[in-house]
């Protein structure tokens, strides 16, 4: 697949860019080469230039630990901005995972230039179409191979361009780096580094800090394994231009969009023009296996629709226009896990997955063929379908390679970490407890008005939805019982009419019985409708709100981490100053190293 082949070069190319950034940050001499490179991206055949740039990068590496440079950062970003604006047109409509909410789970990344990003969206929308061709060229740019940079270094580099920008605003870029543990990341990072320079347009000008954003944007287009790596690398490099209206927006923007998501999803799709629509159906629940090892399997059928001129063209990423695979419930959970891991820290809202219901599953495992188990299966099937459809509508998650794997590959590795009783499960429990504790202890001064407002809104909405959901559930239960009792009444009336001597009355009674039976059917149908249309919808939205809360929380956590990192940095600086004073030169170097380390984390 062309797509698969493209990414690697992309990543490779990015590396030199990153290196360049590094240099810019830490040694003024490096700025020059960087600028060179930056100016080039506008024209795609910059590979040779890139190579040169990379060479320069390498040279610059030696000065990596030279004077600390903070000034260059500003310069860089401005240059990046320029590049970004130039390149935006060239970028392909790759969806870049925009950090939904600035979360710096592990390292406080410098806040994104939210303001900048905000300005971009409109521009992006216009350029969405033009972006596509540009993207294809990107891989070309990334052909140069770069020595794998140590992730840490890369992160430092990546982060440095940002720090100068919008210190106040929070971004959710850095965490992603830490998330990556696969070998490819290094490659990706470097590739992204290059991307950054070459494809500065990818990241909207204002969002040059967006480079730091851990957008997993390039991932969708890259080979699946790369995809996971990309997000981490992304933060370092500029984001690829997001075709969707909201790609580059700072996390806040993204969160705004996400929050107002459902109402605007349609609009976004239409505006972006090149959006892909996936029509996903989950059907055919079947019971496989027997006894305790039994599980339900579902067929997942995907059809790709293109809003463009050609209907049902294949998304370049997907191998065929329509496919069907068989999945089991733990596969769905596994998908949710992977997506959460990748996106939640950067602030994206991942649709909640259906819960694992031990009771329901054991019933099925015991192969009880009663109505309650079929109902349960039906409910679950509908939930899964909605889950997949929500993911497919989401502009970023749609392009996620994991998601695509899920839809395409015939055999998925068994997601063991999702089973109810497992090591991973216990870990998750512990993590959950830790999260709850931190929720209580961490207090964040909400500096952003928008967030505060949104949070209040979300809370209020959540309450209302929960109440409404409760009353709808009551309604459904009552109606069901009404149906059942009507049926009983119909039967008894029939019997009564049998024993009635008077023929006319007997006839009348038996007709009454029939009518009551029909009424019962209607009632049951209505109850089902109520349930599936209303109650499930409400439940889904309550779940989504929960996911929103999680993302909000991530943001708080990242802020907290950032603060911590800043404090430590200050302390280290103090220590360094002290050392300088006392003339302990040997310790100075050590201290400076630490300082740099923490600076990176702060970013």
């Amino acid at each position, binding site marked *: 697949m062309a797509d698969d082949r493209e990414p690697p070069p992309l990543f490779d190319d990015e590396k030199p860019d990153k290196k360049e950034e590094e240099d810019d940050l830490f040694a003024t001499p490096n700025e020059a080469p960087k600028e060179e490179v930056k100016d080039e991206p506008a024209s795609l055949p910059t590979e040779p230039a890139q190579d040169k740039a990379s060479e320069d990068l390498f040279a610059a590496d030696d000065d990596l630990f030279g004077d600390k440079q903070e000034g260059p950062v500003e310069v860089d970003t401005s240059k990046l901005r320029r590049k970004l604006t130039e390149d935006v047109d060239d970028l392909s409509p790759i969806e870049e995972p925009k950090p939904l909410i600035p979360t710096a789970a592990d390292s406080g990344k410098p806040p994104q230039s939210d303001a900048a990003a905000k300005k971009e969206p409109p521009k992006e929308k216009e350029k969405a179409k033009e972006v596509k061709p540009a993207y294809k060229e990107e891989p070309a740019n990334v052909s140069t191979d770069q020595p794998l940079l140590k992730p840490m270094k890369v992160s430092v580099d990546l982060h440095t361009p940002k720090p100068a920008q919008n210190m106040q605003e929070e971004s959710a870029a850095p965490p992603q780096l830490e998330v990556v543990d696969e070998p490819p990341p290094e490659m990706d990072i470097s590739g992204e580094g290059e991307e950054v320079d070459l494809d500065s347009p990818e990241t909207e000008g204002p969002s040059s800090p967006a480079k730091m954003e851990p957008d997993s944007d390039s991932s969708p287009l890259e080979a699946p394994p790369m995809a996971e790596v990309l997000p981490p690398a992304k933060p370092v490099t500029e984001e690829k231009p997001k075709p969707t209206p909201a790609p580059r927006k700072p996390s806040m923007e993204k969160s705004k969009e996400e929050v*107002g998501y459902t109402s605007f999803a349609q609009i976004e799709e239409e505006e972006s023009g090149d959006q892909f629509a996936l029509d996903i159906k989950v059907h055919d629940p079947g019971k496989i296996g027997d006894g305790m090892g039994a599980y339900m399997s579902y067929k997942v059928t995907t059809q790709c629709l293109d809003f463009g001129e050609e209907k049902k063209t294949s998304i370049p990423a997907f191998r065929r226009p329509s496919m069907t695979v068989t999945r089991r419930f733990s596969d769905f959970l596994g998908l949710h896990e992977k997506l959460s891991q990748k996106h939640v820290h950067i602030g994206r809202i991942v649709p909640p997955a259906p819960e694992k219901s031990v009771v329901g599953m054991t019933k099925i495992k015991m192969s009880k063929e009663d109505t309650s188990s079929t109902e349960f299966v039906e409910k679950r099937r509908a939930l899964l379908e909605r889950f997949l459809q929500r993911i497919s509508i989401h502009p970023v998650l749609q392009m996620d390679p994991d998601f695509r794997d899920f839809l395409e590959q015939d055999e998925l590795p068994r997601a063991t970490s999702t089973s109810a009783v497992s090591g991973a499960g216990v870990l998750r429990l512990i993590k959950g407890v830790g999260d709850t504790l931190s929720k209580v202890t961490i207090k964040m001064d909400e500096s952003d008005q928008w967030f505060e407002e949104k949070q209040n*809104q979300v809370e209020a909405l959540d309450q209302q939805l929960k109440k409404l959901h409760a009353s709808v559930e009551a309604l459904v239960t009552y109606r069901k019982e009404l149906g059942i*009792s009507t049926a*009983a*009444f119909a039967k008894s009336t029939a019997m009564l009419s049998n024993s009635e001597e008077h023929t006319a009355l007997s006839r009348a009674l038996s007709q009454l019985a029939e009518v009551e039976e029909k009424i019962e059917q209607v009632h049951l149908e209505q109850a089902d409708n109520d349930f599936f249309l209303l109650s499930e919808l409400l439940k889904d939205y309550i779940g989504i709100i929960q996911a929103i809360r999680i993302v909000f929380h991530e943001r708080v956590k990242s802020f907290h981490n950032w603060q911590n990192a800043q404090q430590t940095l200050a302390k280290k600086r103090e220590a360094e100053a002290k050392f300088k004073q006392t003339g302990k030169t040997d310790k100075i170097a050590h201290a400076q190293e630490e300082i740099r380390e923490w600076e990176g984390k702060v970013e």
Partner: protein
Amino acid sequence: MMDGLDDSPDLLAEDENKPRTESVDLTKDDTLSIDISDALSERDRVKFTVHTKTTLPDFRESEFSVVRQHEEFIWLHDRFVENEEYGGYIIPPAPPRPDFDASREKLQKLGEGEGTMTKEEFTKMKQELEAEYLATFKKTVAMHEVFLQRLAAHPAFRKDTNFRVFLEYDQDLSVRLKNKKEKLGWFIKSMSQSVDEVLLSNQKDADEFFEQEKGFLVEYHNRIAQSTKCADRMTKMHKSVADSYIKLSTGLGSLATCENTELDKVFNKVSECFEKSRKLEARVSSDEDLKLSDTLRYYLRDTSAAKDLLYRRTRALADYENANKDLDKARAKNRNVQQAEQAQQRACEKYEHLSELAKSELQDFKKRRVGAFRKNLVELAELEIKHAKALNQLYRNCIAQLKEEGRAAKAQPQ
């Protein structure tokens, strides 16, 4: 005493159809008209004002009122039951005890849960409960009234002294509630009666008519008991559905207030619609209750009264046969022949008398039942149609309005 029998076709002369009591009028008879003109509900007793208008010379005045309580009605009923002379009649079933416990419980629960719901929700639910309470109250009054009216219409019963006392005596009848001993005695009696019934039920009756009736009544009784139970459950569920609409509509309303997109208009509209439909649904359920369940319930009791009649008859028959046997024995021993003969004579008379009456009573019972069912079922169907149409119209309007709003919203620049 016996001219009542001549009027057998006019067995049930009810007053003109009062709005409250929906008993079946087989004939009209103004000689004795009773109604319950007023009813007061105090903490746990209900006081009925029984108002009588009569042209019969037996009464002191032609129009008078007394205040009676539920226990006194029961007393009256028991007097009739005990009276052997009325063995051949179906004694109208006693009115059920006024039962407000259910409503009271709900009111209490509502009071406790006041904090959790909004003010309007609370007032709405309270209104619903009060309406329910009122309906139960009305039903109770109606039951008592029907009881009295049937007594009055019955040619034999209306002449009863106890009945007259009941209607006339100004002061408290000071009805002594059955004390423990009496209650126990009554309990034992009813136990023996049921045992007897079982024994006697195996006895094949010579008379075709009665045999048939017995079979029919027993079966009918069971089935109607079943139906009544189901109907009751159904109406209760229906009421719950209607009540849950309240919560739904208030929930949607509050959602609309915190929703600031165009959805809020939608929510408001839907919430209004639910509110209106709730009233209709509640009406449907109460109608069902009134027409269907009540009829079934009443005839449940009536059927059991008829069964009692049959039982008495078979009892009399058994006595008669016993007396016969005794007579034979006595004749054989040639001792106490006179006594035995007399006893036998008595038993025979009683039995025949009972049988006659029973026959006519049962036939009337059938007529009554058919008539009542017909009337109530027809009314039920008509009401249901009316309500269904109204509901249908309401929902259609609501949908049309929502569509309008949706179109208007789309037309607006996003």
